[in-house]
Structure formats: structure tokens, C-alpha cells
């Protein structure tokens, strides 16, 4: 009976919602309706109005923020002082402490708080238990280093401004103007970034709610006294509470948004601030047609069937933006976890109307606003994208060096139905000689959506399943989400409640919402005690049926709450330390991901392994914890095309271990689409095929001729190039360089390449790929950024000359070029999994450029432990010049180096392929490899196909120094 009541009330609700939707939507996309537009988000609307007002007044606009010079002090690379905000015509002010820190790394940080809130001198409405301060702990989640202040920075001050010289060789400058408040950041005396140039800085100071008298009083007092507040004329409607989609946010702290404008003078391109489904270069958000109507939004959300080319929010957010112009990249990182929006406009500099083209410069003007928290912005002055990304990574951490298996192929589906089903797919992949490393289980493996359990009927023997997978070094990834089923007798939820580790609602009770399991609670991973508890749940003896080859997938951690506002939690929910959910929302996903990462480090005492945890929601810093994917995409060509811009954007924003669901999550892909998607997926740093529960099965062996062999080729291509991919991951793990790299990143001076986001370089290998993302393509145009020689990867056809070249791309072919001058490490022997390739010999592909020389790099380690931190790895450069190929050690010796090298002694190089081999080699039959001779075979140029040579079995070990003389 009880269930019936629930059902019927749920039904009523559904019907009402449906009816409402029907009434108010003019037939456009349904999906938008669950999510706010700027107009529906109070502070967004207010800040845009503020900007409009300022813009309309032009030079007459007086920004009400100024620094009081007497408040300023300079100490230890920090400039501290107070900004006064004038809040009414009477000249009343509020005090906003500001700190500008100049860091040893060359980055600068501007932090602005509000004194009253900081000191707790405010009153909260509704007897709220929330903290009074502005949220100031984002740093403790996002930042892991790089905060050392500069010892060499110097400050000079006069009555109107303060000038700080800092950065490498003192080349950077911050010019802080007092009234109105503003900062210009300069490099080599040229202004790169301007804060508050447009005077849009805005901080909603605390104020008590003044209840206006009711318009109609009983006594008939007709003119109700006007409230004597300065904000007359301001729209208060969104200050005290906001309702959206039937949910009302109580806003106990009143309005508290923060905003500032950031201008990049002379920069026409801005990139970053993922996650959005759109182009790599960000578009304007406030101008005429062809642009976005709304600002880019960052408010992590489970967006159902997201649409293309849109600034609307998605599952994760990294508020880090890069601005790029010819030979210069700079960046800003807005450290704030609340809902935020970013307006972007571009303006041609007006003062030089006669100069066309080259002379005229474009400024990109951005406007950032968050609902709550601090203004806390890091400024990076480059001058290269690599330096900006590196500096950002010093703060938020670099990509975790992943388990090697995790960069191989993942076979996923919602759902593999039984343990036998999993074993069957495993056998069939082997049988069809299709390599894969990981098979995945979505939510249906659990007993009634209770995580840490297995469905006793469908998965009676998880151990047997894991054992079979382990035989060919394959792994299982199982999903574990943050919603914990609210059901009597479920030990996890009982502990969660007993230990009080869940998120609370605004009244301080355990929050209850709906997700996959129905009624659920959410573990609050902001709480150190919750993390500790979470860690305990993953021990092999606690999570029965788990084993060392089981890894974890964290989904729905935005968090997704089916019945919550915008499919997430109410903003007035309370987290550990009584921070409102509003303050921490965008970090929430990362805290859960972090807890799982911590848990996976050591599941058995002494067995410390690199975790692999996939997350859907993320924030700045999530790159330290695992991989992300672009969420629930669709089996359509436009979604295939959207993958690379999204992954590239994530990559330059410090989180390169990214991928899109191969095949498209929703819907059934046509066979050619699926095939093209595998060819594209072979270039995703995170490479996983996935499918919705209502789709047809699409494991690669089911697709049939000629598709299955073509897909297998793409998969084997990925596997052959794993040494190169792993080396690229290593590079990302030490300096944050993206794994797949957009053109502007590699060729910062080539303006023709700045907009490119459908072709890219793989690591430092010189591999230039442009996988086909359109239907029925027979060829693609690839843009060559320089006049180096490029060779088709598969047949060595030569392409030269800067500009576009047409490369054939029938269904079976991936447009992939090798840039001259590189050496690419490969392993060509197909095996069942990457783990079984460990002992296979390498093939080195030496791609000779115009100069006749080439270089390359290789990083190898055990691929699963942290022994590399003690030197258990091989890191080498290969250099070919003047007829000599040399392998040199570039690693740093550690405690475990010798031991590791010993185990790798038998792993050698089986062949060298030299592409663009000189004619003089035509008669050559052998080369000198160490003390021995190795055979050489030369193949002359044929038409457009380059000459090449192969050196057979040079018998040199991969971990040793050697020379091969040609």
C-alpha cells in the first residue's frame, strides 16, 4: 500500500511537470528546460545588468571600488590592503581585504574577501546553521603546491598606484591602480592582462534583509514609507530566495556574488574553461548572431542529451582560461567552487581605424562571476602555452601517471548482464584477436543498486570472473557512485547514518534525494572522517568479490540527484564544516573522486598500486586522481565531431586524460559511424567503447565484415603505439603538457592554426592526426603548419608545404601523418592485452626530416606501482644524425633503477624502420649495431611514396646505451 501511494504521488508530480513543460515550452529542445539560463540565475542576470549599465555609461561609469593607499603593506612577496566599496550616495563603504601574492613560479594571485563576513559579523536568516564566511577552502582541494611566494619580487608605490616587479628575471609587472581599483599585468613592459579594466568588479556585500511593508495595510495607511536603502532602484528579487523548477533556494546569507572583468589586450583567441560541448576557441557570448546568447556556465550537472555548440554547463568545470596571440600565451585561473558564468566578447581596437588586417588588434574581454565565495584569481604570463599549463599544474597538480592498462582499450556497456556474459565477451575478444584491457560493469551488477554488493543471481561468482580476466592480464572496472541506497539492512547506509557522514539538508538532517537506487543519501567526502570510512570499504575483505584487477568508476558525482534542482543538490544543503552546497558545488565531484582514489591506493596492507578511477564530474585538480570522459553523448556524427574539441580543451586545461564514449552512449550507431568512432577513439587519451542499456550490442566482433577488421586495425594501432602514448602520459605527469595537442600549443606563431580543433599532435611524437568525423568522407584536408616533410603513417606517401594537403581517407584509413624529424617507439606484436606486451621487443620508426636527422623519446616502467618514484624506469632519448642512431639515458638513477633494468634486460629492439632513407643506402646491406652487424634492407622511392629502409634485429636492449652506425 505504501508503495502504491508513493507511486501515485510520484505520478501526479510527473504529470504536473509534464503538463507544465507542455504549457511553457515553445517546442524547442527539452533538455534546456532543466537548466538555468543566465536570466533564470539571479546573480548572472544581476551581473550582466551591472555590465550593461557600466557599458552604457561608458567613460561616465564610476566603478565604486578603490584601494585605500594607507592600508597597503608589502611583505614577503605579498601586497596586502583594503578595497573600499562605496555602497550608497552617502558614500558609505564596506571593507574588502585584498591580498596580491607573487609566487616563486612567476604566477600571481589576487584574493579579495569581505571583512564583515570574514569576521562573522553578519546574521543569517532562517536560523541557518551555515558558515558565515565566504568559502575559503577551495584551495585545500584544488591546490597542491606552487604557493611559495617570490623572494625576488619588489614593490614601488606612489599616491595612485603600486608597481610590483616579479617573475623570471623580473620581466613581469603588476601595476595596481588604486582608484578605481584595477591591476594591469605586464610582461616585458607590455600589458597582457587587465583586471577591472571595464569596472565590472562587483561583490555583493552582506546586508540585512529589510522587509518592505505590505502594500495594503489594514489600517489604510496609504503611502508606505520608502525604505531608506542606498540600493534603491536595484532589483532585489533574487537576493533573498530563488525558485527554479519548483525548488526554492533559501539563501540564508543573502546575495553574495563576486565578479570582475578580465581583459586580454591584443589577444583574439581564448581557450579553456571546460567542460562545454563546443569549439576549442571560445566564442563570444554577448554580441550579435553566430555567437552564444548566454555566458559560458560552470555548474557541474548531469545534463541529459546535451546539445552541441553550446555554452551550457556540463558535468565538470575547470575555471582556467588561456588567451593566445601570435607567440604569446597567458592565462587566468579563477579559484572558486560556486556556480559561475563567464561572458566573452572580442573587440577590435578602435583607435587605429585605418590599419586593416595585420595592424588592427583585437582585445578579448571577459567577465567572470560566481554566486558566492572569494575573488581568488591566479595569473599566468607565459609566454608559451606550455609554460602556462606547467605553472597551472604546479598549483593544481599534474596528471597522475596512470596504470598502463588504463591507456589501452576499455570495453564497456550498460550493462554486461551476468558474470558469464563478461566471460563470454572476454573469450570472444580473444578469439577474434581483438586486443582489449578492461571490461566494465555499470550499475546493474549490484544487488538492488547497493554498491559494494553483487547481484546474487546475475553475478554469483565475481571472483571466477576476475580470475578469468586476470589470466590474460585483463581488468574489470565496476561503478560505484556517491548516492547510497536508503534501505534498511544495507550495511553501508546504516554505517553512513550511524557515523553521520552524509550530506545534510539546510535543517541539519541527513539529506534524502532520488537517484538510481531510489531514495538515497550522499556520502560527504568533504569530511575527512567520511574519506577514512570510504577507504575502509574498498579493502578486499570488506568489498567481497573484489580483487587486485578490479578498478573503479565514479559516476553521478556532480552530484546527480534526479529530483533536485537542475538535477543536483539544493544549494542550501550543508556539507562538512557547515559550508553550504552552493559554496562547494563544483568541487563536490572531485572530493568523491579523491576519496575513491585514496581508497584504491592500498586495498591490502603493503600492496600499493596506482589507482585507476574514472570520474564524470571534475574540477581543477581532478587530473591528479584519474581519467574523465565527456559523459552521455549520442551515436551521431556531430557528437563524434564534438569529441576532439572537448578533449583538446580539457587537455590544455590540465586534465588531458580524457575521452568520449566510442560509438555514442545513446542510440545505435550505423556501422560506418561506429568504425569511424573507433578510429577516432584510438586517439583519445582515454579510449572506451560504451553503450546505453537500450541499445543493441556492439562489441567489435559483432559488427561484421568489413567493419570488424577495420575496427581491429584501429585498436591494434593504438596498442602498437602504446609506448608512444605512455611516454606522452609521462610527459603530462611531469609538466602538464597535453597528451593530444592543438596546433596553437605546438605552433604558437602560426596564426592560421589557432582555430584548428579537429586535428592535433600526439605527444611529442610528431604524429599529426585528423580522424574522420564526417559521414561518407573519402579524403580529408590536413593543415601542415610548416614546410617539414610529412609521411602518411600507413604507406609513407609524402606531403610537403605549409598549408592544406588532401589525404585519402576511405573507411579503412585513418588520416595520420608522421612529421619528419621524429623517432616513434612502437610494439608491433599483437597480444591479447597491453599487459602481455610487456616483454615484447620495440620497433623504432625513424622519420627523417628535411635535415636528415630525427629525435624521439621513450619512457617505460612497470606500469602499475609507484616504484618509478624510486628510479624503477627507463627514460631515453633516441637521436639520429649523421648516420648514427644513439640511445641515451635521460633518467635519474634511484634506489630501484638497477633492479628494474635487470628485469628489462631481455627486452630489446627488433627492428628500425627508417622513413625517408637517403638514396645512398640503396647498396647498403648492413649496419653496425654495437659490436655486431645487423642486416639492412632498402626500399627505393616509388612515386610519391618515400624511400625507406629496415634494420633487422639490431639486438640492442631498450634499457641500455648503444649506437647504431649506418
Amino acid at each position, binding site marked *: 500500500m505504501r508503495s502504491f501511494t508513493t507511486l501515485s504521488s510520484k505520478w501526479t508530480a*510527473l504529470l504536473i511537470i*509534464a503538463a507544465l513543460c507542455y504549457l511553457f515550452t515553445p517546442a524547442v529542445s527539452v533538455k534546456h528546460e532543466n537548466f538555468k539560463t543566465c536570466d533564470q540565475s539571479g546573480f548572472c542576470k544581476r551581473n550582466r545588468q551591472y555590465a550593461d549599465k557600466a557599458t552604457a555609461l561608458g567613460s561616465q561609469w564610476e566603478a565604486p571600488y578603490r584601494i585605500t593607499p594607507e592600508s597597503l603593506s608589502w611583505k614577503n612577496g605579498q601586497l596586502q590592503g583594503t578595497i573600499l566599496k562605496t555602497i550608497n550616495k552617502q558614500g558609505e563603504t564596506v571593507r574588502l581585504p585584498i591580498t596580491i601574492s607573487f609566487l616563486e613560479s612567476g604566477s600571481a594571485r589576487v584574493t579579495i574577501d569581505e571583512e564583515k563576513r570574514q569576521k562573522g559579523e553578519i546574521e543569517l536568516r532562517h536560523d541557518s546553521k551555515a558558515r558565515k564566511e565566504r568559502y575559503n577552502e577551495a584551495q585545500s582541494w584544488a591546490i597542491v603546491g606552487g604557493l611559495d611566494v617570490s623572494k625576488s619580487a619588489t614593490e614601488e608605490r606612489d599616491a595612485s598606484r603600486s608597481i610590483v616587479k616579479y617573475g623570471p628575471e623580473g620581466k613581469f609587472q603588476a601595476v595596481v591602480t588604486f582608484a578605481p581599483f584595477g591591476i594591469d599585468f605586464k610582461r616585458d613592459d607590455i600589458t597582457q592582462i587587465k583586471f577591472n579594466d571595464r569596472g565590472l568588479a562587483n561583490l555583493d556585500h552582506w546586508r540585512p534583509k529589510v522587509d518592505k511593508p505590505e502594500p495594503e495595510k489594514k489600517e489604510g495607511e496609504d503611502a508606505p514609507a520608502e525604505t531608506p536603502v542606498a540600493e534603491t532602484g536595484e532589483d532585489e528579487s533574487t537576493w533573498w530566495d530563488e525558485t527554479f523548477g519548483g525548488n526554492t533556494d533559501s539563501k540564508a546569507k543573502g546575495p553574495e556574488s563576486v565578479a570582475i572583468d578580465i581583459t586580454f589586450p591584443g589577444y583574439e583567441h581564448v581557450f579553456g574553461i571546460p567542460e562545454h560541448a563546443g569549439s576549442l576557441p571560445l566564442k563570444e557570448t554577448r554580441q550579435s548572431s553566430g555567437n552564444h546568447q548566454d555566458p559560458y556556465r560552470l555548474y557541474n550537472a548531469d545534463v541529459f542529451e546535451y546539445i552541441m555548440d553550446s555554452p551550457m554547463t556540463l558535468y565538470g568545470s575547470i575555471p582556467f582560461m588561456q588567451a593566445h596571440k601570435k607567440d604569446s600565451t597567458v592565462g587566468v585561473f579563477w579559484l572558486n567552487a560556486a556556480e559561475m558564468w563567464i561572458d566573452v566578447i572580442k573587440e577590435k581596437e578602435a583607435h587605429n581605424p585605418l590599419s586593416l588586417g595585420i595592424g588592427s588588434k583585437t582585445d578579448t574581454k571577459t567577465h567572470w562571476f560566481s554566486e558566492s565565495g572569494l575573488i581568488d584569481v591566479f595569473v599566468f604570463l607565459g609566454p608559451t602555452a606550455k609554460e602556462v599549463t606547467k605553472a597551472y599544474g604546479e598549483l593544481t597538480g599534474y596528471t597522475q601517471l596512470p596504470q598502463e592498462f588504463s591507456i589501452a582499450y576499455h570495453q564497456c556497456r550498460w550493462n554486461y548482464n*551476468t558474470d558469464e556474459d563478461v566471460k563470454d565477451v572476454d573469450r570472444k575478444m580473444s578469439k577474434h*584477436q581483438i586486443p582489449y584491457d578492461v571490461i566494465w560493469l555499470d550499475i546493474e551488477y549490484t544487488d538492488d543498486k547497493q554498491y559494494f554488493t553483487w547481484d546474487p543471481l546475475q553475478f554469483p561468482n565475481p571472483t571466477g570472473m576476475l580470475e578469468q580476466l586476470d589470466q590474460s592480464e585483463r581488468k574489470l572496472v565496476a561503478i560505484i557512485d556517491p548516492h547510497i541506497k536508503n534501505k534498511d539492512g544495507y550495511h553501508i547506509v546504516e554505517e553512513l547514518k550511524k557515523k553521520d557522514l552524509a550530506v545534510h539538508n539546510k535543517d541539519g538532517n541527513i539529506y534524502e534525494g532520488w537517484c538510481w537506487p531510489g531514495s538515497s543519501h550522499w556520502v560527504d567526502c568533504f569530511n575527512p572522517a567520511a574519506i577514512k570510512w570510504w577507504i575502509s570499504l574498498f579493502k578486499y575483505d570488506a568489498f567481497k568479490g573484489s580483487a587486485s584487477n578490479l578498478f573503479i568508476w565514479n559516476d553521478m558525482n556532480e552530484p546527480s540527484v*534526479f529530483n533536485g534542482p537542475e538535477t543536483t543538490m539544493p544549494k542550501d544543503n550543508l556539507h562538512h564544516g557547515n559550508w553550504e552546497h552552493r559554496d562547494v558545488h563544483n568541487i563536490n565531484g572531485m572530493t568523491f573522486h579523491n576519496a575513491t582514489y585514496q581508497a584504491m591506493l592500498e586495498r591490502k596492507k603493503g600492496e600499493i598500486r596506482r589507482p585507476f578511477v574514472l570520474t564524470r564530474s571534475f574540477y581543477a585538480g581532478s587530473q591528479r586522481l584519474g581519467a574523465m570522459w565527456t559523459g552521455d553523448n549520442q551515436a551521431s556524427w556531430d557528437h563524434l565531431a564534438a569529441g576532439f574539441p572537448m578533449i583538446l580543451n580539457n587537455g590544455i586545461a590540465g586534465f588531458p586524460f580524457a575521452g568520449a564514449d566510442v560509438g555514442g552512449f545513446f542510440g545505435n550507431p550505423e556501422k560506418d559511424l561506429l568504425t569511424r568512432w573507433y578510429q577516432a577513439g584510438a586517439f583519445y587519451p582515454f579510449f572506451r567503447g560504451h553503450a546505453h*542499456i537500450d541499445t543493441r*550490442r556492439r562489441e567489435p566482433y559483432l559488427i561484421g565484415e568489413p567493419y570488424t*577488421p577495420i575496427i581491429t586495425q584501429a585498436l591494434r594501432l593504438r596498442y*602498437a603505439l602504446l609506448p608512444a602514448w605512455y611516454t606522452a602520459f609521462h610527459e603530462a605527469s611531469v609538466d602538464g603538457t597535453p597528451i593530444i595537442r592543438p596546433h596553437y600549443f605546438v605552433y604558437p606563431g602560426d596564426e592560421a592554426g589557432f582555430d584548428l580543433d579537429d586535428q592535433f599532435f600526439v605527444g611529442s611524437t610528431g604524429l599529426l592526426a585528423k580522424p574522420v568525423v564526417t559521414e561518407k568522407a573519402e579524403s580529408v584536408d590536413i593543415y601542415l603548419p610548416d614546410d617539414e616533410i610529412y609521411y602518411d603513417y600507413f604507406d609513407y606517401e609524402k606531403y610537403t608545404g605549409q598549408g592544406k594537403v588532401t589525404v585519402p581517407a576511405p573507411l579503412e584509413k585513418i588520416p595520420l601523418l608522421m612529421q619528419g624529424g621524429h623517432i616513434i617507439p612502437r610494439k608491433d606484436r599483437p597480444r591479447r592485452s597491453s599487459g602481455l606486451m610487456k616483454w615484447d621487443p620495440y620497433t623504432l620508426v625513424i622519420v627523417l626530416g628535411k635535415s636528415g636527422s630525427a629525435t624521439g623519446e621513450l619512457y617505460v616502467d612497470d606500469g602499475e606501482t609507484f616504484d618509478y618514484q624510486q628510479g624503477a624506469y627507463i627514460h631515453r632519448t633516441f637521436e639520429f644524425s649523421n648516420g648514427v642512431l644513439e640511445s641515451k639515458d635521460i633518467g635519474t638513477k634511484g634506489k630501484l633503477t638497477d633492479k628494474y633494468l635487470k628485469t628489462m634486460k631481455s627486452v630489446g629492439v627488433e627492428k628500425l624502420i627508417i622513413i625517408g632513407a637517403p638514396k645512398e643506402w640503396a647498396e647498403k646491406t648492413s649496419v653496425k649495431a654495437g659490436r655486431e652487424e645487423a642486416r639492412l634492407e632498402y626500399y627505393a622511392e616509388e612515386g610519391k611514396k618515400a624511400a625507406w629502409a629496415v634494420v633487422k634485429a639490431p639486438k640492442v636492449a631498450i634499457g641500455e646505451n648503444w649506437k647504431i652506425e649506418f
Partner: protein
Amino acid sequence: MRRIETLVLLSTFTTGILAAESSRPRGVSPEFAKFYKDPNVFTCISNPSITLTPSQINDEYCDCPDGSDEPGTAACTYLSALSPPQPISGTPNTTLALPGYYCKNKGHIPSYVPHSYVNDGVCDYELCCDGSDEWAGVGGTKCEDRCKEIGREWKRLDDLRQKAARTAAKRRMELVGEAQALRAGVEIKIGRLETEIRELERKAADLKIRYEEVERRERGRVVKSAGGKGSKVTVLAGLARARVEELREALVGVVGKRDALRKRVKELEGILATFKEEYNPNFNDEGVKRAVKSWEDYAANKKEEDVSAEDRDLEEISKPDSESEGINWAEWETGDEESDVDALYKFEEYLPAPVRTWVHQKLTDLRILLIENGILADNANSGSESKAVTDARNAYQTVNDDVGIKQTSLGDLKNDLEKEYGPDDIFRALKGTCVSKDSGEYEYELCWMDQTKQKSKKGGGHTGMGNFVRFDKTTVDEEIGADGKGLGSGERMVLMYENGQHCWNGPNRQTTVVLACAEKDEIWKVVEQEKCMYRMDVGTPAACDKEKKSGGGEKKDEL
């Protein structure tokens, strides 16, 4: 299964070539030994133009475009149409000369293991019980020879398989016998029925003639109707009028209610249509999904009929009667007319007696004629029929019905005889019997030549997974378990079950029942290959080969 077939295949070669074994390079089977005999030179097997020194055999570098120089290593594995094409691998269509790495498996049966399994650090005992696939011991891998125990176990199971195969073959013969008996039974029944029907048809024909005679005779006898008095009609008209008025009012009320309900249905349909458009299937809420599905079915079955005509009629009817519209009651409540029959009889009365008889006869004949031609209403039906006619008709109809029934049975039996029951009519013996299997969340049931069903253990009724439609064939490539269960490789008989219960967001359920020979009827495995498209792997003696005993390797090799 592949393994077993390979084993069988191999066993035929082994005899007699044993002598060459010792000199063969690693990984070469006796079948290919001859290519490796020359101590001075090696010629690539399918590329005779390429010659190598014997030291290049198994030197971990692939020299031959057909991979034949590396029978014992994984060096040539990249030569594959499944690998990315490269100039170095030559033409993409190269076929490899060797079927795999040859494991001698002394004490068991020799076998090929794919070259890509060689020296990868995994002891592939299933294929290579002697562990020789890991001869290099990469990363410290050690695979001891387990052929003795594996061979013993295999032999034990093989004996069981043999035994099972024999039982299966026997059982099959029994089934064939039963099927033949059943068929014979049907044939006998048909013969009997045909005789009976002939007999009955004759009888029916006689009775029909008799009945028609009696009826013809009786029909002419016109019974004078009781005749309605005018006053009664008037009374009736009055009553009818009141009643009609009452009904009319009720009708108007009902129409009003109907219109209101129609409006509400439309409104609800609107809500549901929107709901269907806008709900989030990703939430996978079964309740919502079911609701959407029911709505879809409802919407699909809803006929958009044009009710305007009906409405016009209703409107017409609803109007009050008057002289110009509906019934002119006034006319009925006053008038008193004679019926045509009365007039006719009155006319007769004025004629002289002899003429009267003649005319009467003629009129009766005419009347019969008119009735028979459908011109005049048959009075007999409205009035009471004479017992003689009733009896005659009953007698005829009983026999005639009996003929019909028997003919239907005969047709069924004849159809059944022509219907396909598989080879040797064997499923005739199984028809109507069922097997079931407990598998995870569901219990599955297969009824031969009837239907397939599933039943969730979590509750709910049976779900039809399809009804038998036809026999078919399919090619499979599956494992055979150690217990002999599994489809194996090759062409297998299929029973197709289609048009089961409709699936949410999918097709009607269907089941492909793939059969392989087994000792007894048993569902081995049920998989949902695609959404709501099931495959059942089923063992049954009915699927055993006619002559051969069964699939398993019957010839064992004692190496």
C-alpha cells in the same frame, strides 16, 4: 570446440611422421616438417623466391612474408589483415603459411596455439598443456608440463562424452521410432476419418433432400396472422411515444457526458504525449518506462475514426418528433389501417369456390416463389414452424455438422502430416514437451514447436519470448565445455520462435533456439544478443547426426 576439431585433425597426420619430430624446429608440426628439413637453406613456404639461412629460423625476426621462418616465435604476428597496414608487412592479403605454434603436448593431443600467444607470459594450458608456448620464460614465466594430468582428465571426460554420445544416438533412434509411430498413428486416423466422412456425407445428402421437401410443403401453408386491432396500435403508439421521449432525453444526457469525457481523454492524451516526449529515459525508471510503453501501445492502437456522421445521426435523433421530422405520432395514434395480408384474403372471399381453390393454390405457389426469391418476407420464420420441418432440419444439420467437424480434423491431420518436424520427423516425438533452465535472474522455458518463455525470479508473470515459426540453420563458433555442453563449431539446426511479447523501446521478443547433440534435452545457455532478441543454446538428442554418434573427438590419440 575448435580445439577438439583441431586435435582430431592433427591426430590423422601424426601416424608415421613421428620419426621426423626430433629434427623439427620449435613450433613446427609434423605436417610442415618437410619444409624445414634442408640443413643448408630455408625457403619461405609460400614465397619460394625468398631463401634464408637455417639460422634465420626462429631468430625472433620475421623474414618471410608468410611468417614461415618464425614457427616458434611471435615475431611474425604483425603480419595480419587485422593489424594496421604497413609497407613492411607487404600486401595486406598475405596469408600465413602456418596455422599456429605447434605444441607437441606429449601425453595428450598435439595442438596449435596462435603465435600471438607465444612468449607473452601466459601459460595457455588449455591449448598447450606442455607449456612450450612460454619457452623463453619472459619475465620469469615458467610453465611446467601438465599434459599428463590434463590428458588424463581429458580422457576421462572424453570417455564420458563418448558414452553420452552413444546414449544420445540411442535416444535419438528411440525418438525417431516414436515419431514414426506417431506419424503412422496420424495416417491411420486420416484413413479412418476419410471413410467416416464419406459415409456421413452420403447420409447428409439424403437428409437434406428430405428436409427440403418437408419444408417446401409446409411453407405454402399460410397461417393467418392474429391481426392487430387498430385500437391496440393506438395504445401502443402512445406508449411508444412516451418511451421514445424518455430514451431521447437519456440519449441527450449521455451524449453530453460523452463529450465531456472525450475532452478529458484528449487532455490526458496531451499530457501523456508530452510526458513521452520529455521524460528522461536515462533515469531508467522501470515504472516510467512501463507507463511510456503502455502509452505508446495505446496510442498505436487508437483508431482515429470519423465520428461526425454518427454525431449527425445522434443530433437528428435528438430532435423532438414533429410532422416534418422523426415520427408523426399523430398519424399513428388516430389511424387504423388493414394489413396487406388481410386485404388479400378479403379479395379471395369474393370468388366462387372452385376458382377460389385454384386461386388459393396459385397464390400459395406464387408466394413460395416470391419467398424463395427473396421478394416477400418469409412468414414462417416469424411464426411458429411445424414440428415436421424442425425435425427434418435438425436431422440434416446434426449430420452435416458432424461432417464439418470431421473435415476440420482431417484437414488438421493432413496439415500436420505435411508440416515440417525436422529430420526424420523427429520433433513429432518431442512436440508439446518442455525444458526449463534456471539462469541468474530468470527461469527460461522452451516448449518444442510451441513457445519460449522467461519468468523473473523477482516476481511477475511469464514473458513470452516467441512462438515457434520455422526450422532454420545457422553457423556457430562456440566453445564446448569439458562436460561436453556447448554448440561447437559448424552448421547447427535452429528453431525460430518469433512474435513474443513486445519489448519496451524494442521489437517483439524472439528466440533463436540453436540445437546441438546431447544426451538429454537441456537448455545450456540463454543470451540476450540484442535487445529482446534471445538465443538459446540447447542440447537435445534430436539434433544428433543420423549416423555418426556425436561431435566429440571419437578417435583418441595415444601419443
